[in-house]
């Protein structure tokens, strides 16, 4: 009887080893281990054996069954592995072919720049506020210490609607609105559209944007103004940026200053962008003039503040190296998609 078993075992192993695919392995399993398989039949013949031989024979059948089973499993795993390898090899692609385009739109460079400015200042606890573009003369000029017939009114080439209303020439009027309505202390920036009667050319536009900043509190100093704008410049133009404050004059701040930053293209050595100077003028700023505080019913003996104003187009044009203002308002998709 054991010879029969041995034969089944040897033949089965040989067939398994010779198998080249899953279906022949399955055939082998059915032919040997299936309900009508060879080993199953041998097992069924157990009852023909004398009782004393049955245990040892049964045990031998099980050993052979286990061995064949294991052989089948390992062969199956081996074949599966080979099949996967073939599949992967066949599925190789040319990864250098062009991608399938995502048609994501692009933000206007002015607003990319504005987004950066807003992130910097909101991070320092500033609130973003807005004000009207069609404005009263009072808010655009008078409350900012620019009385009637002040030459600054001419310099700014104002578009008038009526004698009392105009298109704001600066976002500084939002300072006044904010001080009139908001509780103290104030920390705000006010981005927005402004208008001046400049012809549209490579560096001017009659319709452009500014970002105003205002801080009012009991102990805010000119030193704080310097420190704040220094942080701003470094975050906007890079940590290596250095700043320079030059005395200047604005009717609504005193002391006043203009801030230059080291040219972020050449690092201050002098290049075409900074016209060889190494420095680029970025913004005007100063300590809020006590008259302005008074006109907003804030006691200048108790409170002081600083304010600044940045040209958004100027920042965008410098930062993204845009050499012509026209581009910002033409909205050619070939321009916009570069941002």
């Amino acid at each position, binding site marked *: 009887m054991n010879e029969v078993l041995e034969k089944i075992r040897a033949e089965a192993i040989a067939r398994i080893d010779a198998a080249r695919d899953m279906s022949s392995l399955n055939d082998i399993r059915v032919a040997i281990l299936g309900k009508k398989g060879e080993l199953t039949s041998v097992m069924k013949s157990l009852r023909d054996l004398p009782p004393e031989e049955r245990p040892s024979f049964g045990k031998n059948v099980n050993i052979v069954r286990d061995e064949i089973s294991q052989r089948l499993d390992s062969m199956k795993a081996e074949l599966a592995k080979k099949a996967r390898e073939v599949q992967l090899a066949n599925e190789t692609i040319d990864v250098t072919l062009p991608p399938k385009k995502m*048609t*994501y*739109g692009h*933000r*206007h460079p002015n607003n990319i720049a504005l987004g950066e400015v*807003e992130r910097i*200042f*909101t991070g*320092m*606890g*500033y*609130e*973003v506020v*807005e004000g009207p*573009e*069609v404005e009263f003369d009072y808010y655009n000029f008078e409350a900012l210490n620019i009385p009637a*017939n002040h*030459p600054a009114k*001419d*310099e700014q080439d104002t*578009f*008038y*609607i*009526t004698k009392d209303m105009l*298109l704001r020439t600066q976002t500084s009027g939002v300072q006044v609105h904010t001080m009139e309505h908001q509780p103290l*202390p104030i*920390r705000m920036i006010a981005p927005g*559209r402004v*208008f001046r*009667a400049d*012809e549209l050319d490579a560096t001017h536009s*009659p*319709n452009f944007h500014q970002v105003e900043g205002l801080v009012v*509190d*009991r*102990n*805010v*100093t*000119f*030193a*704080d103004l*310097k*420190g704040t704008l*220094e*942080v701003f410049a470094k975050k906007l133009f890079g940590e290596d940026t250095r700043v320079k*404050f*030059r*005395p*200047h*004059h604005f009717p609504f701040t*005193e*002391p006043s200053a203009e801030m230059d930053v080291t040219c972020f293209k050449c690092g201050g050595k002098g290049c075409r962008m900074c016209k060889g100077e190494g420095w680029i003028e970025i913004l005007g700023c100063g*300590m809020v003039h*006590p008259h302005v505080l008074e006109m907003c019913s804030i006691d200048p003996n108790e409170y002081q503040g600083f304010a600044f104003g940045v040209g958004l187009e100027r920042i965008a044009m410098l930062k993204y190296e845009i050499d012509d203002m026209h581009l910002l308002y033409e*909205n*050619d*998709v*070939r321009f*916009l*998609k570069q941002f």
Partner: protein
Amino acid sequence: MRTSLKWIKALVPGIKDVGPQEYLDTMTLAGQKGEYYVELNKNLEKIVVGKVLSVEKHPDADKLVICQVDVGQEAPVQIVTGAPNVFEGAVVPVVLDGGKVAGGHDGSAPPENGIKIKKGKLRGVESFGMMCSIEELGSSRNFYPEAPEDGIYIFSGRDDIKPGDDAVAALGLDDAVIEYEITSNRVDCFSIIGIAREAAVAFNTGFMPPVVEATGNSEDVNDYVSVEVRDADLCPRFTARMVKNVKIGPSPDWMQRRLAAQGIRPINNIVDITNYVMEEFGQPMHAYDLSTIRGSKIIVRRADDGEKFVTLDGQERDLDSDMLMICDAEGPIGIGGIMGGENSMITGQADTVLFEAANFNGTNVRLSGKRLGMHTDAQAKFEKGLDPNNAEDAINRACQLVEMLGCGEVVGGMVDVYPVKKESWTVPFEPERINKLLGTSLTADEMLDILKRLELTYDEETGLLHIPTFRQDLLATCDIAEEVARFFGYANVPSTLPDSGATAGGLPFDLRVQDLARDVAEFCGYSEAMTFSFESPKVFDMLRLDADDPLRSAITIANPQGEDYSIMRTLPVSGMLTTLARNYNRRNKEAKLYEMAKVYLPKTLPLTEYPDERVMFTLGFYGDGDFFTLKGAVEEFLDKAGIKRKRDYDPNAGKNFLHPGRQANILLGDEILGYLGEVHPDVCDSYDLGTRAYIAVIDMAAVDKYASFDRHFSGIAKYPAVTRDISMVVNKKTLAGSIEHVIEKNGGSILESYELFDIYEGEQIGLGFRSLAYSLTFRSKERTLEDKEVNAAMDKILKGLGELGIALRE
């Protein structure tokens, strides 16, 4: 404002060795911003004074001569020249071998790096340098009127120079001209004295202004001439002095050189003196030929409306009653602060000259000049509002110069009409407040040191600072703080951050919704555009708006830049269409754009209160896509804005600029959130947009009412869904939206979703009809649905559809 650096150095000797760049940088940091400088001796090298010892004919050239020139070396040098005006004994500028001159003889634009001069042979004769014309030295006859029109420059009457001396210095070209940006509050700095005073403080060195001494003979000018000021509001002060026996001639070299460096052409001694004083003191002056002043009387009065007057440039000017005239007994002789008249001009024949140094109302001068279309140097100074106390020093300085130059006999006394004298005022000295404002810790003495050098005086007893009248910008402690900071150095003020308590900060809700709209638009492939707020009133016709459309009521700009920019837009469509057309005509295959911008809706016209400035979110495109592409972007935004309610699309939007069959209002209940549609082909034609285009306009203020950033998790369905498909044939006029309304209304709480999965139009269905097929999904959150529940819901839906006359398709 520009100044000769040499002239400044004459008043501030302590900076004599400072170069132009260092000077410019220091002045800029102190507040008088130097824009740039020009060195007058640029590219002038190895140029010395030479004396021509002999002139011989060139053997081989008729037009050349051979000169032996003493240039201060052991032996004379030989120079061959074609200049017609050399003669034996002439003293000339000579550039030696290896030197450089600025430009060519013809005075054309000089080359960047000048012209190198080397020894060479001219027609076989050796020449070791070149004698120079004024043009070759980088200047012109404008500033050196004594230079010949054609030929080399010849020094005359100069006992102070000898062969071998630096000719550049002898010509006064060893100078640099600084151009400043002076801020409008610093009227005093539109003068040499004002700038020099700043320079002395900035460099911490002494200031030596000219000392003006009393002059004049024993006579009194008031016996010769009288002045009556009728409009003192426009002329706070009028001073006059007189010079007899005038000898008109050229002014001395040093004065001509200073004027030339300031960019002023020397004319004659009297005119040069008035210009010199104007530069030095910043006080414009005028010189009259006294013999032309009728009745020896000057009357200062407003002009009459319609009065005419010929200014000294020969132009006839139309006057009005807000302009100030200087008149004599019979009529006008000058426009106050702007320009004198032709009739009282100084000519070579003048024997008696009357100097005027007056003070005029700056605003009036500015406005008058604007109306006259004039812009003179005097006007530019007066319109800033000059210090009337400066006029007296200026006129006395002019008389002092007359005596110094020996060009006339100064008559004693001064006519001075000065009814209200401008007095010095005081500002309390508050060192602690200054430190508190600046964030510094300077001592009172450190501050006073700066302030005293600026000619403020401090009264220790009262604690008051007395402000000199020329510093009309110093009115309060903050102004004093700026003076302290400027000269302490802005760079030396520490950099700190405000240490006050935290503030809330951040973006307000409407700006957050706007940012979200931008994000969604960009995700959907739209790029951001920016167009102007103003446009032409013609756009209303281009957009086919009805004659009585309220959107035609626009804010009009009183002084626009042409009609195209003359009104504030009331709808954002035109900007978008213009932009799309521009892209189309530039052959961009596709353009998908959006803009977040305001429209300006007046509440009343003419405007008396703030208009309604509404932010509109406009999407527009041409190229790949259709109405539904745009609707998809709109829906995506409204979903992301947290608006859960279904939006209705009403085809009766009534927009004349959109396709009549392809437009819709976007509704949320009764509220119109905006509209969208295909652009009307006539409108496309008007905008030269040769393709179908689509546009959506969303009113952000309306969206803000329903938008929310709140989100609540509602669980994930655990029980299986039941799906039922229905198909129906309907009249084409029946809107899918109305069917969906029935489905939503009647589906009950177990209706989870529905989806239109097929639309069919064709022969089998018949003209005017279409087939719509919906897939409905039912699900309960609590249990597995039973058939009968779903059937009940379906029955209700079918019943509702039946009421619309719709039956299911077999």
